[in-house]
């Protein structure tokens, strides 16, 4: 079981949580709005009933309260109808109650302030109570204070709220389900390119295809292009290994053939031939091993800082060539980088600097410069230099293992191989210092490490 959630699971959880939050809040707000307006309606209804009751109330000059036996609103006449009225005096003693209140325990009623109206809900008893404190003028000088209370059961209101809620949540749940289905469909649709990548990779893996197809959405282009680059790189590395192995096997055959064809009766020449051919095979092995070990240009490669590597090499070589008292001028900025694998760079610069140390008469200059589209590394010395007619040959040594190796060894041929693995080129010329100048050209900007698109290896 993978402890990481899949993208599907993540999206689903996010959708469900947001739906619950959104619909829950919306539902609660709608419910509250509905209850508020229903309450207001109830208040208005009770208020108008109160006015109706006031209209039929009369007080005699003696202060006697008189109301008709049967009121116009039928619910006041029917016992236990759910609508009751009570008129209380100043001591909160009931002077009159509607017929509907007969045998009914009304909720506790409170004394009212004269001239104020008061709507109470919710109350301890659960009833709606609309009350008004009224100063009733019997004569010009006599005023009777009365409290009118209209009491209504909440059944109707409750019914309304329940019905509203039922339909509200019914719709919301239906809506949530629809949204969920839509979201899942959207999700499937958006993630389908990823599944295609995985299917594509599968076909590449099984060898039916070389590359991922290129019709992916913009967001995946970076990924698929890099994957293609990696595949390309692997393919090239494989073919380099294959070629290397092939070359190695073939180039070993010649010295082996010479050894087998040796006339063993002639000890003197046999010995000479053996020494010569062993030497030759050693060279072949060296060359091909180093060549196969080259990492070469790879996509997503980090840049390697050049200066520390040069400094390490110069310190080491100064030790080895301590007798020569060489001055090596390093013209490289501290943060100068290049998109070459660190080991490869060490191999390149190691061979170049080793040659320079070997041949110079005390002066070496190593420099790097960033041009518009490429990075240039130069190593120069004040030694004897390399003759124009030898330059090509020097770069091919090792490859043609039958050549006698002097001085420069297979170093430059290897450098040339490594540089070519990075699609660069190598040039030998005469240095201003007097000796050889080796120029390496890498076809990309070192600082950014941006690698130009692949072109086929020819």
């Amino acid at each position, binding site marked *: 079981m993978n402890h990481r959630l899949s993208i599907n699971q993540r999206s689903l959880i996010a959708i469900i949580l947001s739906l619950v939050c959104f619909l829950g809040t919306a539902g609660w707000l709608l419910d509250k709005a509905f209850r508020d307006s229903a309450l207001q309606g109830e208040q208005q209804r009770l208020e108008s009933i109160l006015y109706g009751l006031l209209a039929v109330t009369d007080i005699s000059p003696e202060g006697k309260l008189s109301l008709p036996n049967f009121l116009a609103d039928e619910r006041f006449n029917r016992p236990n109808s759910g609508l009751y009225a009570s008129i209380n005096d100043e001591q909160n003693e009931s002077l009159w109650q509607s017929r509907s209140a007969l045998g009914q325990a009304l909720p506790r009623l409170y004394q009212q302030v004269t001239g104020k109206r008061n709507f109470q809900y919710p109350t301890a008893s659960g009833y709606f109570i609309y009350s008004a404190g009224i100063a009733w003028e019997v004569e010009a000088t006599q005023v009777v204070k009365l409290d009118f209370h209209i009491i209504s059961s909440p059944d109707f209101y409750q019914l309304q709220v329940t019905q509203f809620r039922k339909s509200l949540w019914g719709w919301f749940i239906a809506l949530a389900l629809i949204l969920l289905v839509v979201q899942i469909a959207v999700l499937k649709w958006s993630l389908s390119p990823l599944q295609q990548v995985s299917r594509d990779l599968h076909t590449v893996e099984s060898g039916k295809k070389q590359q991922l197809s290129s019709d992916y959405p913009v967001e995946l282009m970076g990924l698929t292009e890099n994957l293609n680059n990696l595949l390309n790189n692997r393919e090239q590395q494989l073919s380099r290994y294959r070629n290397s192995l092939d070359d190695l096997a073939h180039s070993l055959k010649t010295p082996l053939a010479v050894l087998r064809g040796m006339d063993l009766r002639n000890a003197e020449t046999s010995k000479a031939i053996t020494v010569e051919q062993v030497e030759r095979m*050693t060279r072949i092995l*060296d060359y091909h*091993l*180093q060549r196969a*070990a080259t990492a070469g240009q790879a996509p997503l490669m980090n840049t390697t800082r050049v200066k520390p590597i040069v400094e*390490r*090499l110069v*310190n*080491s070589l100064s*030790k*080895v060539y*301590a*007798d020569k008292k060489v001055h090596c001028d390093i013209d490289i900025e501290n943060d100068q980088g290049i998109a070459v694998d660190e*080991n490869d760079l*060490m*191999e390149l*610069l*190691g*061979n170049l600097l080793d040659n320079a140390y070997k041949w110079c008469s005390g002066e070496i200059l190593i420099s790097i410069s960033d041009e518009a589209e490429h990075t240039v590394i130069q190593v120069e010395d004040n030694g004897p230099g390399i003759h124009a007619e030898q330059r090509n040959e020097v770069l091919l040594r090792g490859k043609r293992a039958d050549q006698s190796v002097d001085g420069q060894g297979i170093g430059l041929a290897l450098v040339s191989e490594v540089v070519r693995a990075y699609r660069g080129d190598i040039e030998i010329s005469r240095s201003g210092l007097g000796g050889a100048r080796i120029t390496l050209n890498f076809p990309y900007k070192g600082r950014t490490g941006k690698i130009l698109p692949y072109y086929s290896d020819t």
Partner: protein
Amino acid sequence: MRILLLEDEALLRNQLQEQLQQEGYIVDASDNGEEGLYLGNEYPIDAGIIDIGLPGISGLEVIQLLRTNNRNFPILILTARGRWQEKVEGLEAGADDYLTKPFEVQELLARLRAILRRSSGHATSIINNGPIVLDTSTQTVTIEKQLVELTSYEYKILEYMTLHMGKVISKSELTDHIYAQDHDRDSNVIEVFIKRLRNKLDPDQNIQPIETLRGRGYRLKVLQTD
């Protein structure tokens, strides 16, 4: 000269040991880092030849540990891969030169002579001491440009003394660096060799290059060039 040879491949180790002994070196050889470290720390070693890829304590660690122990004899590292990464690491650990396998024994001997000479502060293979000129690469000695015929042991003693010119060298130090450990230390061969050297270098007793300091040893005088 006493050489520490650390190489885990038996065939190569025996070959090297034999060739080095033929060249007149005393060889303390081992196939592992632990023993190598012990030999390097306890024996009067003049130079080391150490394979980087030793099992157990690697060659690199041996060099580092020897250097932290202030054992400063020159060291030549052998690498099989020939990658610069490895060479640089070896040199940074304290080695003085490297050689990539496979190599020719002549190359190894030349490098060995070079690091021995360099470690005693001489920049070239030719060491001048007044009229006496010693060439470590050809192992020859001339006086006033006349070649002096020396036996292998005589040459070895003169070379050691020349590389430590002006310093007092005890008899046992000479024995340690010239002979393998099983040699009879009580014999007076050193005295015999010194006597013969004196006769060959200075038959007329004009310059008297080798001084005897009683109870302490010998000293090769630093001579003025004419």
